[in-house]
């Protein structure tokens, strides 16, 4: 198993009074609450943490979110470019430029090819469907978002791998008549591609395409179900079986010297769920295309909707609602928070591994909320030295 350090660069330094008064901490919270000097300090600390990972041999992961306290990484390609130059040995996963929000996938391909060349072939390219408040922040039509997602991936993949002079793309959502990017990527035919999704239809397509399939904070049932949809779609399409190397899981992870320290400091990560998910109904419940029309009785009526059937795969919105009030104990029980001393964290990861049928990549959401730089670096050191070597012994296997 491989591991990837992730920090979304959240901005928690907005007074609780302001957060309580606003209907959304994303998309519409005025940016006067973001002090650029504080933001600069945050970026400096977080980039230093990525560089510490590089020293210690843990891969790094850069995400993208727009216009909110949850993340200052609206311009993911800039961080990817910095990491491409500043790190020297580890792999860099962009998870990712939010491609269904971008007008021109060819430009995205140029950014990725450049980062791959600068890093001399250490880039991995991840795709995330986006949704919610990102649609408002980026003027992106939420109804046909998934169509744009796949068409953009197709175009980026072709732009990265095509070496025979200009080609033309006249798709439904994107047209670009003269595509010929320089430089081409270092890795041939293109860097490995990842996709983050929990919904069964997208999971099936991720499977057919053979992308690395990452589940974020989904817990064992939803994760297992999505991996199964991936495998089933491959089998139905007559494609060869994949190994656990095609599967990834992202959770909050904190390693302390003791269990007490791991739980105490690691609980700070839950700020992300408690505080940074607050989103106005127009960016969530009532976002067009967010749920199928058949779900309208639950969406529109003000009486509380019935809970999803046990074991059902929740929509991203439902998943978010479930997470906002979670306690550390619940988060640990649900497989979204792996915290404790190195032995405990190793045990929690491997137990989760067994529950979902295996995965080859663990993404550590390792710094969030008010966690300090020192606390974050401590966990990076302990994880890299005490946990990662043992996880590396778990080799890819084929699972039916």
């Amino acid at each position, binding site marked *: 198993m491989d591991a990837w350090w992730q920090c979304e660069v959240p901005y928690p330094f907005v007074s609780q009074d302001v957060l309580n008064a606003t209907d959304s901490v994303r998309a519409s919270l005025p940016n006067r609450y973001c002090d650029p000097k504080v933001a600069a300090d945050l970026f400096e600390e977080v980039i230093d943490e990525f560089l510490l990972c590089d020293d210690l041999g843990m891969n790094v992961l850069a995400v993208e979110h727009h216009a909110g306290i949850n993340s200052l990484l609206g311009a993911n390609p800039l961080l990817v470019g910095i990491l491409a130059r500043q790190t020297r040995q580890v792999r860099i996963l962009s998870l990712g430029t939010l491609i269904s929000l971008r007008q021109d996938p060819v430009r995205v391909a140029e950014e990725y090819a450049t980062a791959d060349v600068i890093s001399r072939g250490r880039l991995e390219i991840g795709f995330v469907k986006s949704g919610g408040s990102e649609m*408002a922040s980026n003027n992106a039509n939420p*109804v046909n978002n998934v169509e744009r997602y796949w068409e953009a991936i197709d175009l980026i993949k072709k732009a990265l791998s095509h070496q025979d002079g200009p080609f033309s793309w006249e798709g439904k959502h994107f047209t670009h008549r003269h595509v010929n990017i320089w430089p081409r990527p270092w890795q041939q035919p293109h860097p490995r591609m990842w996709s983050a999704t929990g919904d069964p239809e997208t999971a099936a397509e991720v499977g057919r395409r053979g992308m690395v399939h990452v589940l974020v904070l989904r817990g064992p049932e939803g994760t297992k179900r999505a991996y199964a949809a991936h495998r089933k779609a491959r089998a139905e399409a007559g494609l060869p079986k994949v190994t656990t190397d095609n599967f990834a899981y992202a959770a909050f992870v904190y390693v302390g010297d003791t269990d007490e320290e791991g739980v105490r400091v690691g609980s700070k990560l839950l700020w992300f769920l408690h505080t940074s998910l607050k989103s106005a109904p*127009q960016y969530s419940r*009532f*976002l*067009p*295309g967010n749920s199928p029309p058949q779900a309208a009785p639950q*969406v*529109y009526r003000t*009486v509380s909707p019935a809970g999803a059937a046990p074991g059902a795969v929740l929509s991203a919105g439902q998943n978010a609602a479930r997470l906002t009030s979670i306690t550390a104990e619940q988060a640990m029980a649900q497989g979204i928070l792996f915290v404790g001393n190195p032995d405990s964290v190793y045990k929690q990861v491997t137990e989760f591994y067994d529950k979902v049928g295996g995965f080859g990549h663990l993404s550590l959401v390792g710094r969030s909320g008010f966690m300090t730089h020192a606390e974050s670096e401590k966990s990076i050191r302990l994880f890299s030295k005490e946990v990662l070597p043992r996880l590396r012994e778990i080799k890819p296997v084929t699972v039916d």
Partner: protein
Amino acid sequence: MAHVTGSAVTERLSVGEIELEVLRRGSGRPVLLLHGLQTIDPRARFLDLLSRSAEIIAPSHPGFGRSPRPADFETVYDLVHLYLEVLEALPSEKVALMGLSFGGWLAAEVAVKCRHRIDKLVLVDAFGIKVSDRETPDILDVFNTSPQDVLRRSWHDAGLAPDPNAMSDDELVIRARNWDAACLYGWHPYMYNPQLKRWLRRITAPTLVLWGASDGIVKPSYGRAYSALIPGARFELIEGAGHHPEIEQADAFADVVGRFLDR
């Protein structure tokens, strides 16, 4: 196949590959009625009033109501050409065309393109053009605004707004279909065609531009500007109504429209 809903008859109308759900009511001069962000409630009082002297033909746009939406049919260009075909499919040589809100945009586009089949045009709190400067939106972004604000700005008396808790499951599913479809067609540029303003001068049918005086979705000043771009158009305000004068002031609405159509 037709079935009766309340006192209105719902039928299907085949136009090319598309089967539209159509609400029909009354007899007399034909009025093609294009709905707005939501489909028309068959129980609406203004239908009763207008249909005393007119045949109301109100299709649900593809993706709205119970009209299917073919794959890749998702632009106003598609809708406009669909309604040009609908006009050709109707037996009467001339019809009155009336559009509400988003449907007003469609009606204006159709009237620009098809002058020979339309003898009267009624635009009610219509979308479709850009009037103000680039930093002043004319049309409230209903998708990115809080539902309470949208409600408050849609109605003179928000107490008259449909209550989701009182709706059946089917009605709510249709409401959600309508919402998704409106977003698909109208997202960008948001609810207008930058080129339409230039061509409104082509409209030859006598035109009534009708506006709820309290409309906070598109303000009456926008309606006046719209009206001024259509040769000979008459602008009228309906007091005590927001974005839906046909619902909030059904009698006054039917009275003004009826007199205009009968002239």
